[in-house]
């Protein structure tokens, strides 16, 4: 298996509920 060149960067994720909130507010903003 190939060796990784450098450690991967952890992508911080919002929780499922936070994601939904963001999604809802985005939808509200849309025309």
């Amino acid at each position, binding site marked *: 298996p*190939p060796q990784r060149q450098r450690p*991967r*960067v*952890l*992508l911080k*994720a919002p929780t*499922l509920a936070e*994601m939904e909130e*963001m999604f809802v507010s985005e939808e509200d903003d849309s025309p």
Partner: protein
Amino acid sequence: HPVNIPRKEKDFQGMLEYKKEDEPKLIKNLILDLKPRGVAVNLIPGLPAYILFMCVRHADYLNDDQKVRSLLTSTINGIKKILKKRGDDFETVSFWLSNTCRFLHCLKQYSGEEGFMKHNTTRQNEHCLTNFDLAEYRQVLSDLAIQIYQQLVRVLENILQPMIVSGMLEHETIQGVSGVKPTGLRKRTSSIADEGTYTLDSILRQLNTFHSIMCQHGMDPELIKQVVKQMFYIIGAVTLNNLLLRKDMCSWSKGMQIRYNVSQLEEWLRDKNLMTSGAKETLEPLIQAAQLLQVKKKTEEDAGAICSMCHALTTAQIVKVLNLYTPVNEFEERVSVSFIRTIQLRMRDRKDSPQLLMDAKHIFPVTFPFSPSSLALETIQIPASLGLGFITRV
């Protein structure tokens, strides 16, 4: 036919390139507008998940964290949106449960973490993500999969619920055991059931439908087992609860009918190779209640036998069945008060709950065991019917 110019498969790297502005179109065509019963029928199981993952791989390859984040968020929200819209349709929910799990497995299989790479080919290992660790997104997807699973259980419960009492308790398929009706007036066999009456066959047919849909969607076999166990629990709990509330269901012949019905359900499990799912075990309280209707209920020895036999029933349930027990012919007799008292005395030390009815809404905790795929990403082609001509195989 594939939308790309034919190239040798070895030239592909198992990635899909798309423009940032095409992301909404990707979500719309692949998630929101995809009909499990239409186009999706002919797709390889889990194709939407593989496509989404190959798009993630390309964004990872570009080292574009915003693109990765945006795609994952839109995917999750797209799945939630379609499940809100068509969340009462078993096929839609099963389809997205299967694909969400496959997407989650892909994120693990190609994460670069050794524990998930054991079964990978050399080529698959070359396809691991290079720039980003998506462990937190895996957690979000796992939470989403739990939500979808619970939704699937609610959907199948709504479909099964109206069939259970009729099919498991009321409808009689065994002739000549019930003394309730004169032979000439008794309903005929299940194949000629009254219109609108659910029979055991209706339940078995429904189980077949659920099972074949889940298989068609490529749902993990371990997950199918959990769904089936949950279905059997619902059937057992609803049947037992109704038996405990209805005097007319507490007779020797009903015991016989229930045992026959349970044997048919077991046969179904055997036929589908699901005997290790734990589904049969969830019927144990019902099986024991049916046995209780059939055993002798007179002597001290009978009481002892009942106490050791009915370990899956609470004392309250045993006593209730004995109280409701109704002879339907001259060979049977009512259970005496003193016999019930004897049972209560013998069961005194059992520290079981005073609960009479089973919690028919209980959902067993679900798990999604890691299930890597042997499919080579570079061989995946995108059918034109998906309307994804704007993405490019890389």
